[in-house]
């Protein structure tokens, strides 16, 4: 029998200040909504922390705040995104993610039905990834002090032995690979935010990449860098890596996959797909000799069927990322300046 005489009215109810007060209402929300869907042995213990034993070796830890608007978008929602985002940050060290923690900041008045939808999606993403949410926190802020719901997730993972993957590891001569098409997530968000309807529905690529990474490091342990090109897109992430490693890069535009619907939306909005965010793609830099072997492994994985070698690392004291354009000219691919704002003409 339930600890609470009346079940939470998820269908019609809303978050109120008592749900963050630490009292019975909060306990009920946690019980009937969070624990109900995210259920696992550690979470069920109901402690303010999760205790677990770790194996020897190098651990990684990462945290990521999610404030996306709209909360629900084609191809995902803030719940699945909060799981994928942190799993990917962990995975980009080559690590196997083990556990997640989640902190929710809810705005007074937020519909419980929407919250449940988000938590169900989060649970599905965590289950699919095989990484449980083992501890969490809920706070409520007054109406107008939040934007529905913010979710911060933190993850821990363990790095297999023999890996040395880091943003400063790129060396001249290395090959640069990406796992698939660029710009899907950003365009999906922007088109749902602006209510732009395209003939082809553009879905976010939000996905957890740790199984892809596991296959990659298994085949080619000598991978030098891994990073997911989220905010700022491919262009900004490559510039970060070039700067960190003290090298330059040369790309071939024609080899970078961009979906035609994404290309079209970018034309319309005046954006460059190379600067648009991704949530289910990775960049990999590895010794040139291993590139073809790695490409074959990647293409064999469902999340990287369109993987491609897009260029190489070169010596460059100024760390420029240059690109041979599809048109036959060349240009610099610079950092994103400010926000990408739509052009007017």
């Amino acid at each position, binding site marked *: 029998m339930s600890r609470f005489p009346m079940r939470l009215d998820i269908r019609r109810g809303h978050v109120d200040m008592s749900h963050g007060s630490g009292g019975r209402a909060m306990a009920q929300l946690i019980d009937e909504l969070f624990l109900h869907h995210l259920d696992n042995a550690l979470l069920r213990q109901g402690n303010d922390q999760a205790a677990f034993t770790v194996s020897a070796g190098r651990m990684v830890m990462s945290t990521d705040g999610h404030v996306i608007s709209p909360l629900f978008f084609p191809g995902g929602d803030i719940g699945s995104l909060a799981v994928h985002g942190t799993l990917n940050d962990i995975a980009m060290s080559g690590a196997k993610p083990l556990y997640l923690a989640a902190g929710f900041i809810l705005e007074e008045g937020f519909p419980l039905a929407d919250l449940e939808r988000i938590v169900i999606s989060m649970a599905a993403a965590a289950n699919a990834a095989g990484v449980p949410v083992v501890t969490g926190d809920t706070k409520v802020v007054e109406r107008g002090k939040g934007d529905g719901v913010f979710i911060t997730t933190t993850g821990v993972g363990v790095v297999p032995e023999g890996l040395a993957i880091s943003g400063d590891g790129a060396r001249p001569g290395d090959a640069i690979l990406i796992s698939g098409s660029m710009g899907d997530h950003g365009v999906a968000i922007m088109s749902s935010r602006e209510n732009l309807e395209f003939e082809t529905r553009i879905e976010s690529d939000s996905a957890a990449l740790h199984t892809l990474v596991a296959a990659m490091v298994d085949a080619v342990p000598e991978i030098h860098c891994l990073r997911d090109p989220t905010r700022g897109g491919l262009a900004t992430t490559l510039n970060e890596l070039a700067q960190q490693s003290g090298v330059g890069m040369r790309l071939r535009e024609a080899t970078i996959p961009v979906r035609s619907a994404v290309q079209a939306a970018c034309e319309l909005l005046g954006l460059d797909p190379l600067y648009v965010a991704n949530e289910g793609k990775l960049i990999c830099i590895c010794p040139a000799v291993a590139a073809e072997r790695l490409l074959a492994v990647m293409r064999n994985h469902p999340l990287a069927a369109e993987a491609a070698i897009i260029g190489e690392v070169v010596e460059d004291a100024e760390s420029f990322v240059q690109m041979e354009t599809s048109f036959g000219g060349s240009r610099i691919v610079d950092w994103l300046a400010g926000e990408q*704002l739509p052009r*007017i003409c």
Partner: protein
Amino acid sequence: MKYIDEFRQRDLAETLAAAIDREADHRRHYRIMEFCGGHTHAIFRYGVQDLMPANVRFIHGPGCPVCVLPIGRIDSAIALVEVHGVILCTYGDMLRVPASDRRSLLKVKAEGGDVRMVYSTQDALKIARDNPGRQVVFFAIGFETTTPPTAVALQQAQAEGLQNFSVFCNHVLTPAAMRAILDAPQRAGEAALAIDGFLGPSHVSTIIGSHAYAPLARRYGKPVVIAGFEPLDVMQSALMVIRQLNEGRCEVENEYSRVVTAEGNRKAQARVAEVFELRPTFEWRGLGLVADSALRIRPEYANLDAEQRFEVAAISASDVKGCECPSILRGVKRPVDCKLFGTVCSPENPMGSCMVSSEGACAAYWSYGRFRQPDDAGAVQEGVA
């Protein structure tokens, strides 16, 4: 992508490059000003200069609407928000343009000012309808392309009796700016203006038509070729300018014939004429005061004119000291000739207007071409005629 990729094909680019190389007389230089920022953007984004022979140069003109708006007008817009408490609606690229005291609309917004980015004048009208208790001002900027939608919005607001909507009008005219560039006297320490021909605007010309440039081509003896914004359009148009120069012609030709007609969009022109009239003079960043170069709202619509409703003071603010935007906008200096370029002035912290929009000459140099030697990428060559 259909109707786009066709104008970006590499093999066609190579064929055109070969034709340009064959037809360009190697004993002379061809200095072609692309007026529009859209062309500047295409030239840099696709690396078009790399496909040109060394004696064919692009000179980047002032056709970037946010680049030419003087600081004083942005200060006035800020005053509308801070002094009069209006909701200011603006196109996105206006947000980062530097105003006086290193401020911008983006900073005003961060400090609590109600500045909203819109995609069209219709969004601004909607905001006015949704906020009957607030004054809503549309910050109207741009060349002839963006003028008709502003005219339509004013007529709609008039018809609806929308009391809380008004327009801060800053619309400017292209042919007047081209004349101003060609008429500008040589300044001390500046190279002589060296422009052999123009790539004419694409979107602007859809409205005003290619005929609009005929007096200019005749009077100044400069060929004008209306060019589309795709890289193949730019190359084909450059070839057309080169042919005219080789044959001693100075005509208006229309490469962008898939969209632009000789007479332009008559309906749009009529709407604009109903709502706007010429301003006797208007200040341009880089070009100074230019006669008959901008539009203001007609007396019939005076009740929707923000400048009258709020008594907007004319603020004259000087550009940042050392900024070479004025010379760059007139094509007589290159971005790399400016001491501020890449030192204190960058897209993250623009000092001058050319660094603000990706269509500005400085931002394009910085974002797409700064690794090159100054002699590449559109340098103005001296001593060769």
